[in-house]
């Protein structure tokens, strides 16, 4: 995206009001440009020269650096930006650009010689009459050429612009291509004559110009423009002649654009003349130049005709998704510098005339976009496409399951139902009748209650895998059910995670590490006891674990789980001959 530097106060003067930075940023956002940076001339110069602030008298005028879309060449200078924003704000009408009505005989002429087709075949020209420069306008005029050269001209390969003080020259002009030794002139900013081949050598050490030399360097002929007195106007795309240099006092400007791409040359010429015709005696009027090809074909430039399109209203509203009337659409388009009116009385088509400044508009879709921008992207009501939302609890469970499996634990899937004994007595727990859902008609003692812990299932798994090589590392993520008075049915599920280690040793430290890992993957820091910003562990005292060999896990101040060496009596109850460490925690706390 190209960036344009403009003096803030001059811009605000042109906009007819001043803005706070936020207000201006908002305007830019809605229009589709961006205030990239706020700086001063002084800061820029100091930075370029790598200097500290020296309190010198450098200019500290505020500069806005504004990013503009890469296809909006009309916005590459203050004049174009200000005009576009004024019209967007509804403060100005779109100008109608005209080509001065003069006869072919009195028109300036540019003769194109055949040899130019070997190197740079196209040239287009125009004249700005009675232009009033001041320093700011003059600088802007130079800057715009620079910006165009950088962007659409692709560093002068496609198009190169030359601007001249017409009063120092005499038409007709010729566009020729000659062997370099035959071209001899005083180039801009120099005082002595150079032969073109010498000049190329000379510019090899010029930081700014050396990067353009490759465009013609290897050619047997160089493009060159002469006036009737054989004064060299320019050696495109390298340098202009010193003779016709424009100054603040220049009144009549001759503009030539030489090119390898005619379409882009026309866009560049149009951008130059439409922008600066605002400072001409006859505002928005440009004097044409006839370009006569070696084969006798003649064309008159600039071509400021508007490009007409008939766009169905339904295409615009159907693409944006907002019901708009014809007159709403036309006034929105006018704010985007596009002429628009209803096609025929009561018609549902819109006649659009695209001014020469809006070369970016190629298709009705570009018109449609302008309507959407003027309407405001953020005012368009959204339509939701069909989509699904997964259950967060199950998604989280799955992510935790993968992490635990990656820690080397095998997943088991055990029964929800168990005997009362397994759920309480065998775990050294007392049944105080406040936790477990009790089944009224169990077919066997295996299905008396709904588990309140994953522990019995895990221990039964180990008990039935006595011959499995040790250590055994297993885990389960599953639901338990607890009596719950807040629920209509009096009971609710909780999603628990359990992990168990069984081996020659208790594996307490390994399970401790797993606790740390689970907390880490949940993005929870380890904190000192009492701190509720993360988790810590504290000695606990539960009967299913060995005394002093167990800890509760406190997460954000709440007890969410416990781990410890399973009590030898409990191990014995489940017929497990090896020590085990067991972890259980409630993962719903992480949601």
């Amino acid at each position: 995206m190209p960036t344009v530097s403009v003096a803030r106060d001059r811009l605000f003067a042109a906009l007819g009001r001043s803005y706070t930075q936020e207000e201006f940023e908002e305007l830019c956002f809605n229009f589709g440009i961006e205030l990239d940076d706020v700086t001063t001339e002084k800061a820029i110069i100091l930075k370029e020269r790598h200097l500290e602030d020296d309190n010198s008298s450098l200019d500290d005028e505020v500069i806005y650096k504004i990013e503009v879309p890469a296809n909006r060449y009309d916005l590459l200078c203050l004049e174009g930006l200000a005009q576009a924003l004024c019209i967007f704000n509804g403060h100005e009408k779109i100008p109608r650009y005209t080509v001065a009505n003069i006869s072919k005989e009195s028109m300036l002429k540019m003769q194109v010689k055949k040899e130019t087709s070997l190197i740079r075949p196209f040239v287009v020209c125009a004249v700005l009459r009675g232009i009033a420069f001041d320093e700011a306008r003059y600088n802007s005029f130079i800057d715009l050429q620079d910006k165009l050269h950088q962007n659409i001209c692709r560093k002068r390969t496609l198009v190169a612009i030359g601007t001249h003080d017409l009063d120092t020259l005499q038409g007709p002009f010729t566009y020729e291509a000659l062997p370099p030794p035959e071209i001899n002139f005083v180039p801009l900013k120099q005082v002595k004559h150079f032969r073109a081949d010498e000049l190329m050598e000379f510019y090899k050490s010029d930081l700014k110009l050396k990067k353009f030399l490759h465009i013609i360097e290897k050619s047997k002929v160089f493009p060159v423009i002469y006036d009737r007195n054989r004064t060299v106007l320019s050696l495109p795309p390298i340098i202009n002649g010193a003779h016709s240099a424009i100054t603040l006092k220049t009144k009549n400007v001759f503009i030539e654009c030489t090119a390898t791409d005619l379409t882009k040359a026309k866009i560049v010429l149009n951008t130059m003349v439409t922008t600066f015709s605002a400072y001409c005696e006859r505002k928005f009027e440009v004097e044409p130049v006839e370009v006569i090809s070696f084969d006798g074909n003649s064309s008159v430039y600039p071509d400021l005709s508007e490009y007409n399109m008939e766009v169905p209203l339904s295409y615009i509203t159907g693409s944006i998704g907002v019901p708009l009337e014809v007159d709403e659409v036309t006034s929105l388009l006018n704010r985007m510098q596009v002429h628009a009116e209803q096609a025929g009385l009561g018609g549902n088509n819109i006649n659009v005339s695209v001014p020469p400044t809006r070369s970016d508009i190629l298709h009705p879709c570009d018109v449609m976009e302008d309507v959407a921008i003027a309407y405001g992207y953020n005012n368009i009501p959204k339509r939701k496409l069909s989509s699904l939302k997964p259950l967060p609890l199950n998604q989280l469970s799955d992510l935790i399951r993968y992490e635990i499996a990656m820690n080397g634990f095998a997943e088991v899937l055990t029964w929800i139902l168990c005997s009362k004994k397994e759920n309480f007595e065998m775990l050294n727990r007392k049944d105080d009748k406040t936790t477990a859902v009790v089944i009224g008609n169990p077919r066997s003692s295996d299905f008396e209650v709904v588990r309140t812990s994953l522990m019995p299932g895990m221990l039964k798994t180990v008990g039935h895998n006595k011959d499995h090589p040790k250590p055994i590392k297993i885990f389960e993520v599953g639901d338990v059910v607890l009596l719950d008075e807040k629920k209509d049915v009096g009971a609710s599920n909780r999603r628990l995670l359990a992990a168990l280690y069984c081996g020659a040793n208790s594996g307490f430290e390994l399970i401790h590490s797993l606790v740390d890992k689970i907390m880490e993957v949940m993005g929870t820091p380890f904190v000192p006891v009492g701190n509720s910003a993360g988790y810590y562990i504290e000695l606990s005292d539960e009967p299913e674990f060995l005394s002093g060999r167990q800890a509760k896990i406190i997460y954000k101040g709440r007890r969410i789980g416990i781990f410890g060496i399973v009590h030898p009596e409990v191990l014995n109850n489940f017929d497990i001959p090896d020590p085990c460490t067991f972890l259980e925690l409630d993962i719903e706390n992480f949601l």
Partner: protein
Amino acid sequence: MAEDAILGYLATHEEIPDSGQFASQHGLHHNDVVNVIKSLHGFRYIDAQDIKRESWVLTDEGKKYAAEGSPEVQLFLAIPSEGSIAKDELQKKLDPSLFKIGCSQAGKNKWVDMGKQVSRKVQHVEDKVKDLLIRIQDGQTLGKEDINSLRARKLIVAQTWKGYSVSKGPNYAPKRKKVATDLTRENLQRGDWKELEFKEYNFNAKGPPAEAGHLHPLLKVKQQLKNIFLQMGFEEMPTNNFVESSFWNFDALFQPQQHPARDSHDTFFLEAPSTTRELPEDYVQLVKRVHESGGYGSRGYMYDWKREEANKNLLRTHTTAVSTRMLYTLAKQPFAPKRYFSIDRVFRNESVDRTHLAEFHQIEGLVCDRGLTLGDLIGVLNDFFSRLGMSKLRFKPAYNPYTEPSMEIFSYHEGLKKWVEIGNSGMFRPEMLLPMGFPEDVRVIAWGLSLERPTMILYGIDNIRDLFGHKVDLSLIKRNPICRLGIN
């Protein structure tokens, strides 16, 4: 021994008031007693209070005099009881330092006459210094004056004696249980776990680092994004083709051949294989025409479209090259709406810095259907980004050669308190879709963003090279949370 003595004594006594006395009463070394006290205290069998006492001990010099007598007495005894002895003679009989001290002390005591000839002044002296030193050696206490004079002569120094007073602790038992660090299979087999005494855990420290496998954070985020797309009904596009022709990467997208993105500054072009072998010729003609002179309601770019440019191979600069191929295939079939997505590698000829890499991952989603509107695009973007936790969005007009309208997506960042750009979106241009053969009312809305940017925000990483590539610290990969995108 000491342990049994202490625990046994406490079984019948309230306390041991002084470990020093206890040691001497029981014929134990005090050092052994102290070690046992420390160990029992660690397991809280006993409580122990420090006792400190100042005492005096002999210096090496003091010890010598305690054994051999003080220098002044030795000197006195070297002088004959009658008559005198020449000083030189006397000096030869004694050690030089002893002689010097002896002379000065004996003189001070007025025991002798010092001159060239030395003689006794008194006939009988007592060695008081030696007596005092022996009394200190025996642990007796002396008067202040005596202490001061011995100290001044550097014959004694102060020493702090440490001991304990001991009483029963919370875990007191007359006999210590076995100390264990872990419960083992043997403990269970022998049934001795009941007697085991465990060393206390330090719960203020984390456990040892776990031995585990880890997935790369960027790919964790990718997985979640993939789930989000699937939940939104999007099908994954095959993106396992990094080498692409300029035609599919640019031309088919109505991106003009002079576009700056097609510069070698931005795109990696290939030396081998340098050009594509084939392109669908009929379609190429349609693309050429739409670039050169438009059609389908467009005026086109009006330039000479060059086949050589389109043939140039490159590393794809965006996954939209794949989208283009997919849409081209789709347009050849009877129309059916589609939702596509991909998350894969793209390449840019950029210099590497904190925020740019020469390769990164592009996330892309597109919806192809009849009658889609900007409202649909805004709707689908809101759905997608709110699943990423970004529900406050706004859209800025932008330019992109193959979408019109184009919208940059901004999200309000609560931490930074400002709007940040998070992606790009738009409707594909008719100049791209119609040459493929889609019916005129078929529209394609699409959006794209990098995978790295949201991941960096998510994991608080501000240098892209810390996230992706060979310079990444492995501990970053080992220590990062699960990606919870899409879970809310």
